[in-house]
């Protein structure tokens, strides 16, 4: 091919098509109705396609805000329940004290029924427990008071530790007056407590302040234990393949099959436990979808089109092949020694293994139910949906190329995407799975393991009646913490 001929082709088209009046003549004029369509489009309200996407984002943000608000509200409600029966004026407390009464009557007025029930429950548990700390969860002393005392150890400890007592009562109590620094106060020695016997089990060398702290912590823990956050970071492996709905209209001389491959994955997950057994999870996963495409091409080998350099005869064959993300331009180069005879037009069957990769960012949202509680080991099952964004186009790497003709001494396959679209696919799917958490210490640190199956509900790629849906089975391990 000489350059003049190439340039001449360019010149013929450049000159021939440069004048629009030659092209657009009576029988190829601007179609009628074009202006009406333009006018209608200018009058129409703006497309809501972008609005739909913005709506989806807003819905996700809204979901997050809702969950966050729920958590905040529940935390506030817990604190209210807790504080409501702590901040009780003397006038409400003292009239309830009697020798037949209980501390619950002292601390909780009748209007706070829910708080009262909660403390009754704690009282019942207390009796069954051997732990001296948990047995005294019924004693509620405001952390504010405790802090005040910590700040001012030399002040009137008893007054601050027992705000429900009047000044006169404290002054009249000889025992408290003799131990104003709080160092040797024993709660069972305090007359009001002695009468009700609720704190008789508190003993040892703890000061009332220390006891208050312990009790407050215990009570808070009890009230808040069923609602908490966990966050975990993990990595795993994902076995991917594609479900291809419909048939690619491919050359009958090309066979195409996609096989599973394992891919690495990293993830970050936040879970909000709304009860001891139920949680809502949201996460961010990054994974490449890796598969191996197996191709079998049958190509005619024309010796007439070979180029010969020395004792090597070679030819390049350009053909196109399908993939799960659009067509690929394939350039196959075959070489033979000139002494190795090949019949003109003889068919060459080539088997090609092509590793293909697409990078995906996934946002899964799921609900999880705890199935088993075996001490520190928890087993849960979950189901949910996921939103996925393809952040890279399909990358192809030929890993194996075999020829049916022994005479072919060298073969090479170069693949280039035909599809020049700039936008990336967005697709959604569902997932379900099972996971375990093992709490390794009392600070709430845990290790986790999971097994999840996911499948796309909308295609990552579609053309005509062909839809391609990614699906995968993932195993992961992670480390997390309870907050």
């Amino acid at each position, binding site marked *: 091919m000489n350059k003049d001929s190439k340039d001449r082709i360019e010149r013929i088209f450049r000159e*021939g098509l440069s004048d629009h009046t030659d092209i657009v003549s009576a029988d190829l004029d601007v179609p009628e109705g074009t202006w009406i369509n333009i006018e209608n489009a200018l009058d129409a309200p703006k497309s809501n396609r972008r609005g739909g996407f913005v709506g989806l984002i807003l819905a996700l943000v809204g979901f997050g805000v809702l969950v966050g608000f729920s958590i905040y509200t529940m935390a506030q409600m817990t604190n209210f329940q807790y504080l409501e029966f702590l901040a009780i004026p003397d006038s409400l407390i003292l009239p309830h004290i009697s020798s037949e009464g209980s501390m619950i009557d002292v601390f909780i007025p009748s209007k706070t029924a829910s708080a009262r029930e909660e403390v009754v429950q704690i009282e019942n548990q207390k009796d069954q427990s051997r732990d001296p700390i948990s047995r005294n969860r019924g004693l509620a002393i405001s952390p504010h008071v405790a802090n005040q005392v910590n700040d001012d150890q030399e002040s009137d400890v008893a007054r601050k530790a027992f705000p429900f007592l009047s000044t006169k009562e404290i002054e009249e109590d000889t025992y408290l007056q003799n131990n104003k620094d709080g160092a040797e106060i024993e709660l069972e020695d305090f007359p009001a407590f002695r009468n009700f016997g609720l704190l008789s089990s508190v003993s040892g060398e703890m000061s009332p302040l220390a006891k208050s702290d312990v009790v407050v912590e215990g009570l808070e823990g009890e009230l808040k234990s069923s609602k908490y956050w966990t966050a975990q970071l993990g990595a795993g492996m994902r076995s991917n393949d594609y479900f291809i709905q419909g048939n690619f209209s491919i050359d009958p001389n090309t066979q195409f099959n996609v096989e599973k491959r394992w891919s690495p994955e990293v993830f970050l997950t936040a879970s909000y436990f709304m009860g001891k057994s139920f949680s809502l999870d949201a996460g961010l996963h990054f994974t490449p979808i890796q598969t191996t495409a197996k191709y079998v091409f049958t190509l005619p080998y024309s010796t007439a089109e070979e180029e010969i350099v020395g004792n090597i005869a070679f030819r390049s064959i350009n053909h196109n092949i399908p993939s799960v993300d659009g067509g690929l331009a394939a350039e196959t180069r075959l070489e033979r020694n000139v002494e190795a005879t090949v019949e003109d037009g003889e068919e060459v069957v080539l088997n090609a293994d092509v590793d293909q990769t697409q990078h995906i960012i996934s946002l899964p949202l799921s609900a999880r139910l705890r199935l088993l509680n075996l001490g520190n080991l928890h087993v849960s099952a979950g189901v949910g949906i996921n939103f996925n964004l393809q952040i890279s186009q399909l990358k192809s790497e030929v890993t194996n190329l075999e020829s049916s003709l022994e005479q072919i001494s060298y073969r090479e396959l170069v693949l280039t995407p035909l599809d020049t679209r700039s936008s990336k696919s967005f697709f959604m799917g569902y997932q379900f799975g099972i996971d375990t958490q093992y709490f390794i210490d009392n600070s709430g640190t845990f290790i986790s393991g999971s097994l999840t199956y996911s499948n796309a509900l909308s295609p990552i790629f579609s053309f005509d009646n062909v839809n391609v849906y990614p699906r995968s089975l993932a195993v992961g391990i992670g480390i997390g913490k309870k907050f």
Partner: protein
Amino acid sequence: MDDHQIMVLINGCLNGDRKNQRALFDCYKRATFALCLRYARDKFQAQDMLQEGFIKVFKDLASYNASKGALWTWMRRVIINACLQYIRKNRKFEQECFIGEETDVVQYEDVSSSSYSPRDLLSYLQQLPNGYRTVFNLHVMEGYTHPEIAEILNISINTSKSQLSKAKAFLRKCLKEGNPENVTSKLAVTR
């Protein structure tokens, strides 16, 4: 139409005056349709491209700066962008088979510019697969370099070169054999 008349039209269009918009459309519709025909597979696609192009022209007209060039130069760029966007949007998958390239060299004396009507040339061009046609248009008709085409189409420079080479090989055959159908029998296109 002189510069003053064009400026009057532009101002009218910027104020949303439908009569001025219609006048601008009528003034440039043939030239822009011819442009779209080169990028399209047929006149129906070209009509879609023309519509989308003019909608973009009216929406973006405020960004036109008369001191930087003629209106037609600006409009041409906007219309070409609309054509490329249309091709990207509508070309999800094409399975194209194009076996055997540049085997029949068309000699210099075989082809001369006077032998072919613009309609024939357009017909040959429209037979090309989208990728080949787009690269050929950008390089040969618009004068873009391969690095520029690679950036515009988000492909590699080599792909741009390769597609141009294949496009020319196809067009040479068309010019030699005269009937694109003869050539397209070797070109299995799934659309």
